[in-house]
């Protein structure tokens, strides 16, 4: 999508961002890798206070709709450049209708390849807005708040993606009179934390891939956190990397930290209560924190059965390791990116640290999560799944 400038009248009544950030999902369709426009628009929307769940490029209509429902976004924004947009947007709208989710809006853009004539057709079948070449950032933001600033949720338990998605929204929006989660299920809950760049997201996705291969009926829930920015907006980008987690048996929710320090969101605990409730029916729930600092101890919740600290080899310097508090409470430590120079040394250092603290029983694993079917991840999964 090319964005270009056309002088527009300053809006008289500029819409304001509501109390809680508007959540949008953005993506580029199947067989299209043109992400320059969408990443640029994402940056501006975040600056204006939107929470953007970004799925990346080359995404199918099914994946987009499943994600929009699980994330319970107000709308799905599609940036389409290389043609076929009339068919693609239509497929998305039909799938949303089929899922009974017409409440989730659809908007798009795509530069000059989407013509004004196309827009007429697309709006007829239900697209809310198409931002043509020439739309300013300002008018995009204003129009999106106007269209989607008044998000509503219907509470109907948590037994489907739609229901659970909306319940988590209710928790995030601190909806009054919301119900309390029911009895805890047998779901195993594993929390992953560690510094940014350690490869937590890839590790979880590789875990999910392996788990689904082994047991095609397993139901997995994931709460994945990314930081909110000072603007209150945030880029929630884990979905783009977690391609094997785009699966009907996997419920993935991206959460912004919304002002809370330490790696999780103020809503995490209550969301987790719902995720591990009998009604949600997951066998396994994975929680990923934001990239954390040395002093972070994110997993204070009793709901987390196993706390995993994920490090990359560059965290192997002794003095740095001594300062990582998580090492004292982790149930397992993973040195990921084991192919990097210095990985062996890092592993030795981590083991020494663990021993020095008298926690010899804490297992230390090495993984290369980016490698397909990495045996390190298999070992980790087998050790922690029991």
């Amino acid at each position, binding site marked *: 999508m090319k964005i*270009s400038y056309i002088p527009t009248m300053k809006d008289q009544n500029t819409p304001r961002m509501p109390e809680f950030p508007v959540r949008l999902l953005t993506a580029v369709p199947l067989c*299209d890798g043109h992400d320059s426009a969408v990443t*640029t628009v994402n940056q501006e929307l975040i600056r204006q206070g939107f929470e953007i769940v970004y799925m990346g490029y080359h995404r199918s209509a099914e994946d987009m709709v499943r994600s929009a429902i699980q994330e319970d976004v107000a709308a799905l924004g599609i940036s389409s450049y290389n043609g076929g947009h009339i068919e693609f947007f239509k497929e998305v709208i039909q799938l949303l209708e089929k899922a009974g989710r017409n409440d989730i809006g659809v908007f798009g853009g795509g530069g*000059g390849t989407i013509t004004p004539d196309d827009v007429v057709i697309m709006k007829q079948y239900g697209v809310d807005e198409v931002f043509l070449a*020439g739309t300013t950032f300002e008018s995009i933001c204003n129009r999106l708040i106007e269209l989607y600033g008044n998000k509503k949720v219907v509470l109907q338990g948590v037994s489907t993606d739609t229901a659970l998605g909306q319940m988590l929204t209710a928790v995030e929006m601190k909806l009054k009179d919301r119900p309390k989660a029911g009895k805890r299920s047998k779901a195993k809950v594993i929390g992953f934390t560690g510094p940014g760049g350690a490869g937590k997201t890839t590790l979880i996705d590789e875990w999910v891939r392996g788990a689904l291969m082994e047991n095609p009926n397993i139901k997995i829930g994931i709460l994945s956190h990314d930081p909110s920015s000072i603007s209150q907006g945030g880029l929630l980008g884990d979905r783009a990397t977690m391609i094997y987690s785009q699966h009907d048996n996997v419920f993935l929710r991206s959460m912004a930290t919304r002002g809370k320090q330490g790696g999780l969101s103020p809503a995490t605990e209550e969301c987790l209560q719902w995720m591990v409730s009998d009604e949600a029916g997951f066998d396994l729930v994975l929680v990923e924190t934001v990239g954390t600092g040395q002093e972070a101890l994110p997993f204070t919740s009793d709901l987390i059965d196993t706390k995993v600290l994920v490090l990359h080899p560059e965290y192997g310097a002794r003095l740095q390791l001594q300062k990582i508090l998580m090492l004292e409470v982790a149930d397992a430590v993973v040195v990921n990116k084991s192919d990097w120079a210095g990985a062996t040394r890092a592993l030795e250092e981590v083991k020494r640290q663990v021993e020095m603290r008298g926690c010899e029983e804490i297992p230390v694993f090495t993984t290369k999560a980016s490698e397909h079917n990495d045996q390190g991840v298999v070992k980790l999964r087998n050790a922690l799944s029991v």
Partner: protein
Amino acid sequence: MSELTKIIEGVRKFNKDVETKVSEVRADPQQSKEILEQWESIQEKVPTVTTPTGLQLPRLPLPVIDEPGAIARYLHGEGLPGQFPFLSSAYAEMYLDPLEDSIPPEEPTRLFAGLGIPEDTNERFHFLTKNQNSHRLSTAFDGPTLYGMDSDSPGVFGKIGEGGVAIDTVEDMEVLFDGFDFRELTTSTSMTINGPAPAIMAMFVAAARRRFGPDVIGQLRGTVQADILKEVQGQNEVLFPLDASLRFLLDMMEYCVENMPKWYPVSISGYHISQAGATPVQQAAYTISNGFAYAEMMRERGIDVNDFAPRFSFFFDCGLDVEFMALSRVCRKIWAIAMRDVFGANSRGQKLKLHTQTSGRSLVAAEFKNNLTRTAAEIIMAYMNATNSCHSNSADEPFTTPSEEYVKLASHGQSILLEETGLFRHMMNGMSGSPGMKAVEKSVEKAILDELEEIERLGGVLGAMEHRYQRSQIQAASYRYEKQIFSGERRIIGLNRYSEGVEKPVPELVRIPNEQKQKQVDKLKDFKKRNADKAPAALKRLAEVVHSGGNVFAELIETVEVCSLGQITDCLQEHVGKFRPMV
């Protein structure tokens, strides 16, 4: 540490050595005398040409210098056209009218085409080449093909044949180039494909073998883009995890080096990096560092630099920013120094051979006919950089796959520049060496070296990619670019300047009719049906080669005989995994 440090030091040392040489020549009367004699003899050998108006001009104008130090600086620091470090050009003659009795050279115009089903694109190829003495075919593929998917995959119907041609099978590849004789020296083919490049290239080879017999393989001329590093950094057409993608690519490159002496198995591309939003300097730095990374990988496979280096080619974007006056010239110099001094390549391997495309990003939908002028300015700069071939964009590209009308205008733009104007046909260096160009060269060179240093600090090309460095830099530049358009700092005529503010009609749109799309699906289904009993065994053999560490490309040439692109992609993804995108 990658070789980048040595390369950066090498270029700085080269510049220093040139200045040392300048001082030596000045201080030593004997050297002064020798270089003056050499200079005189160079001048004497330059033929004189007569223009249509009867004007006499030197075929190679030289700087007006007669001081030994200045001559040394020119000859050693810039080099004559076709001489190290190839600042002005890789070859001596480039676009000059041939002297009497010589064969007309290949036209540098190489237009990218691809639309609809193979039959449609084949027709476009014949249209584009009908007046050319050489047939330089350049193929654009549609979205499903670029992502290694079949036309009958769920959800792709609308994308079939849009923005490029749909290729599912070896049979499609036969149709695509029907009527072009690959045994002729005047035919060359270029394919813009990356993620699935090994499979598509295998179809190309297998289709040629079907049409002309096995001996044709050694005669095939052309390029396949296959640049997976820039895909991860900017263009996003990646099918397999990076390690596996690189292995498949290197298998293909190795096969080509051994069996296809006239083929360029990789086109190291800055175009898409630039189109994704990179600044010109970022484009140059990321692209040549990718080139060095490939060179290191080929060397690690034990292939001699003089076997692979001459087979690399480059592809740059040329936009309207002032850097483009000299960007490719500087890249040619840095590449030459690195290949000679760090990799030990011979003269052929030192030459950076370059395809240039004008900038799609610089074209706008508003008052789109202005795009003709933008592209015209860009082709002048592309030829000022002595590009070896060039694609000029059509003015209607912001809207559509180009229509014949605008393709013709784009192609003729280059012909007008090269054949009608006197800028390039009578003499070399007509546009080189001005103080302005030199200032840009100096400034750009420094900025590129600084950027290479940053990449090296992050652990070389692959290390920097692991840190998302190139991607985030490109995205930040793209955001700045858009901001500049909104603020008016970046002026775009008809858009944020001198806009008449009225809706202009859009050009005729090229859209592929559903019947054509269906025809492609039907052909594919028929192919799959006919080969249903043979495909599983072929895929099993392919998987065995993947696991045994054999050359996957050599096997693919056999697999494509009975398997479609999508079947091959699925099989490979099952065994090596899918790429997890970085965003």
